[in-house]
């Protein structure tokens, strides 16, 4: 199963916690966005490996941007 991790809202990448190739378990935190002074964590939708990492800390992202793929 491969799932794209899509941004629900625009914001800034505050902390990136994985790298391309990182193995993750379902529910592991992948990165934290800063949105309206709130920290919005994004978690792994299922077990897998990080692929096509497309974000870096400090990036300003738009809603709908694809942060990475978990496959």
């Amino acid at each position, binding site marked *: 199963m491969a799932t794209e991790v899509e941004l629900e809202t625009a914001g800034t990448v505050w902390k990136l916690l994985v790298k391309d190739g990182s193995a993750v378990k379902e529910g592991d935190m992948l990165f934290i966005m800063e949105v*309206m*002074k709130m*920290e919005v964590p994004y978690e792994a939708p299922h077990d897998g490996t990080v692929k096509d990492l497309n974000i870096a800390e400090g990036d300003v992202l738009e809603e709908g941007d694809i942060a990475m793929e978990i496959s």
Partner: protein
Amino acid sequence: MSWKDKTDELNARRTAALAQGGEEAVAKQHAKGRLTIRERIDTLIDADSFDEVGRAAGDAEFDEAGDLIEFTPANFVLGFAKIDGRRVVVGGEDFTMRGGSPTTAGFRKSVYAETVALKHRLPLVRMHEGAGGSVGIQKNPTPPAPVFDPPRFRTVAQTLGSVPVASAAMGAVAGLPAARLVSSHFSVMSEETAQILIAGPAVVARAMGEKLTKEELGGAKVHARNGTVDNAAKNEVAALEQIKTFLSYMPSNVWELPPVTQTDDPVDRQEDMLLDIVPHDRRRAFDMRRVIAAVFDIGSFFEMGKGYGRSQIMGLARMNGQPVGVWGNDGRHLAGAMTAEGAHKARRFMELCETFHLPIICLIDEPGFMIGSQSEKQATIRHGAAAVLTAAMTNVPWASVMVRRSFGVAQAAHYGPDAYVIAWPSAETGPLPVEGGVWVAYRREIESAADPDAKRRELEDMLAVKQSPFPRAEAFAIHELIDPRETRPMLCRWIDRAQPLLPQLLGPSGFALRP
């Protein structure tokens, strides 16, 4: 003498009616990836349950000898049917004739859809594809309606206070059908095939100089994100599936109770993840949909309006089999603040629940109305006050769970009269969040401190303690302070107590849903 020659003619007309716009028009419809209205009806309803109304309506043409040459059926198909064994009224425009723009009999049948649903007190499902009036010359023009006819939209409005109305946009829906589409309790559009337009590209280009495609003007990317429709679905079949799901929570009318179903989900189920889902770090958001999934009957949450007013989560679910309205805050969107859109969504949601006597369960993490220039430009305070006053005027049972923040005037929309109020230890409440209020209230003290930042943090920490739910529990300002894991058992016991009150509410409510 037998009437066989006439029944033969009748049968020929019926066969012609089933052929809709003819083979070529049907093939064209299929080539565009769209179903015909009859296929849509068959997809929606229980097998062999269609009991059509007005099969003989249409236009007949005769030769000089008076023999039938051609019969063109009315381009609105209507009838009774069953969905999951429950009777409904279904109808929709036939796009294969005149692009769904109503013929005389087609128009009459479309008007009759609401009339018959009201008369029989049955849910109404409309599947729309077509345009409204045309300035083209009709073969058999209808004289203008008499001046004493009731307003065309009167029955449309009356249905919203009497029977569930669900509608789907299946292809391009413009003008009158578009207004009918949104005059419903639940509307859904097919992403692959539908557009919703007040007027199509040609009219827009001429009047406004905007050159846009139908999709750019009124596709799902526009209308599933602005509240025009509640939901988008991948295609027509998925859209009809959503309508069936929506109706499964609804009574047949306001004189009947929503259908309670059997569930295997234990009333005392407690999920450990609820104990640590709310982060101690007050700036860290969490996923309210996970709370919803853990608390309500497993798999029973049906979300409506996910694409707009996104800081407010609305939907239907079941609690020990009882259909309920669910309202949560999504702190991942604009910190969960109530926007003008979110307030509009909340008002419609409460009107739906009040109309069909669905108890409301709120999971609250409300920081208040959205602030800032954009919010002021959107008249958020007016839309927000409408939501607050709607809550105050409801009669259905409410349970309000203070999960985290509950602040400002906006929080008042989350508590109906006589709400059963329970709070998690993570609950915070007050006139406004500490971070917003501390600077206003203690500005001089902060500015004159040796280390203003440290002073501000010290004050914030001190005040945050005062917003804890324990003093509220001591003062009996809430019913119970609970372990988050107890949420489902507590709410199941509450719903068991609330159910006997529901029959007293039956009948039309004080206010019905308006689009």
